[in-house]
């Protein structure tokens, strides 16, 4: 599993399952491997298959959400920033 990033967190929606995108992809790979090898039983295979498909869905939805959004920041307070509502660069794409 990839280590936690500094301040950022990947893919809020995949974090529903508390999983980052990378983690979801890795888990997906593991599931494919485990089903292919055929060492697990049939019921377990089906269960993992379903989990795999749901991971596929989630990963896809993570990548599908939101268009590019550009916003300006400006100084606010003593040492912070705030979004500059006055003049936004607007969405592109």
């Amino acid at each position, binding site marked *: 599993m*990839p*280590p936690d*990033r*500094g*301040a*950022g*967190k*990947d*893919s*809020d929606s995949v974090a529903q399952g508390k999983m*980052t*995108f*990378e983690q979801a*992809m890795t888990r*997906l*790979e593991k*599931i*494919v491997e485990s*089903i*292919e090898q*055929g060492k697990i039983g*049939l019921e377990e*295979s*089906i269960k993992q*298959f379903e989990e*795999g*498909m749901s991971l*596929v869905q989630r*990963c*896809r939805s*993570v*990548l*599908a*959400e*939101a*268009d*590019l*959004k*550009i*916003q*300006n*920041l*400006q*100084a*606010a307070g003593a*040492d*912070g*920033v*705030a*979004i500059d509502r006055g003049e936004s*660069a607007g969405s*592109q*794409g």
Partner: protein
Amino acid sequence: MTADREPPRRPPFDPRRVRPGPDESLPPRRGGQGDDDALTVSSLNTLIRAAVCREFPSELKVGGELSNVSRPSGGHVYFTLKDAASEIRCVMWRSDAAKMRFDAADGLEVIATGTLDVYEPRGQYQLYVRRMAPRGVGALELAFRRLKDKLQAQGLFDSARKKPLPALPRRIAVVTSPTGAAIRDILQTILRRFPRVSVFLYPVRVQGDGAAEQIADAIRRINASRESLGGIDVLIVGRGGGSLEDLWAFNEESVARAIAASRIPIVSAVGHEVDFTIADFVADVRAATPTAAAELVVPVLADLLAAIDDRRRQLESAGRRQWERARSRLAVAERCEWFRDPLGRLRQTRQWLDEAAGRLELAVAQCRSAAAAELHARERRLWRVRPEAELQRRRRLLTEQAHRLLSAAGQAHRRAERRLAVARGDLMAASPRRGADQWRLLWGQCRDRLLAGQARYFADRAGRIEVLGDRLGAGSHESILRRGFSITTMVTNRRVVRRARDVRSGDKVQTRTAEGSFTSRVADDRQPELFDDEPA
């Protein structure tokens, strides 16, 4: 100057003045007259200062070498600028010195920009330096290397400090000029590769006065507010290409420290491929250009979607294979006999069971009858050897024996009688009278036979003698003698003379002819030694 004359008003320290005020002027020079018109030192210095202020532009640029640089605790910097022949004292106020981009040290060639003024209490003219910069590109590079070495020694460049970039960032902060090529390139690249992010642009100056402060400040502020912004995954700081001076803000210590202190991973993207600034060394990742920075930060959406699709397909085919495997196993199991006709085995077994039961019964019956027969036999045997039977048997035996005994006795008796009769007969036959007659008969017979036999024998012999006599006669010497031969024998020993050498001259010999014999003496004139052999 007379005592009642007011000294000219000290002009306020105003470096922007180019010309002296209207009410100031140097008093006309006088020749040296008595001591009454001697100037005071203060007024002299004031006049000098006024003259300096009048004559010199408010801003001067002076180039020279730094020396005697000293920073007392007040924070102001005192130094001397010199060249080969001359030098001048300088001072830089603390606030201005703080903005210096480089480390002022003895020996450095610099261009100092400031105002010339006179410190009246000391009668000292000084250059009040507002700005200072190393002279020429070489000096800049020296300053660069100095700062780089210092920060490296402090470990700011260590790779252990560098934070990894998030694989899939959603909120990206960019610190750069809002009008430059950098932001344009970054946004275009992001749009092209992965337009599912939020970009927060914090506009700053990227060169000139105050640029470094703005950049460092921006980085600090964004760090401080990252949570309230919803989390910032990565920060890009940079600018487009330019000269070393243009990029200089990114070589400032303040920027380096702000980058080092950032909790957010930072990608530096300053200038072109060949430009390396201090910011590049401190940052977590250095990108050669702003476009490269965007490429480092965001993945390609199409690639990710393709990877997901690949996984999905693998998952489906793996699942399908598993399913097929399970199905074919089931099919194999279904084909097996137990499945198709479970009762079949049952029937077989039942039949076998029936047969076995039958055989069992048979065997039991056989067993029983054999036992019964055996019992019977034993019973019979037992019956046979029952005591009465035995008794009877013995009695019968006894009776038989008695009978046999009787009959045997009878037979023996009869045999004895027969023998007796025979013996009597024999005896009678052997009575002497009959015997004597018989003997006489026998004797006669024997004698006759004997005589007959004897006669025959003699006749036979005689006959044989005849024959032999004939033969003898035929071969006898009589016939030979009659043919004319004679036999000579030695008189001495009656040996026949067969060889001439058997005799010697003078021996007496007898010669026998067919009729009569005569004696003679050998007259032999042979050489005796020639014939002296061993007599045979």
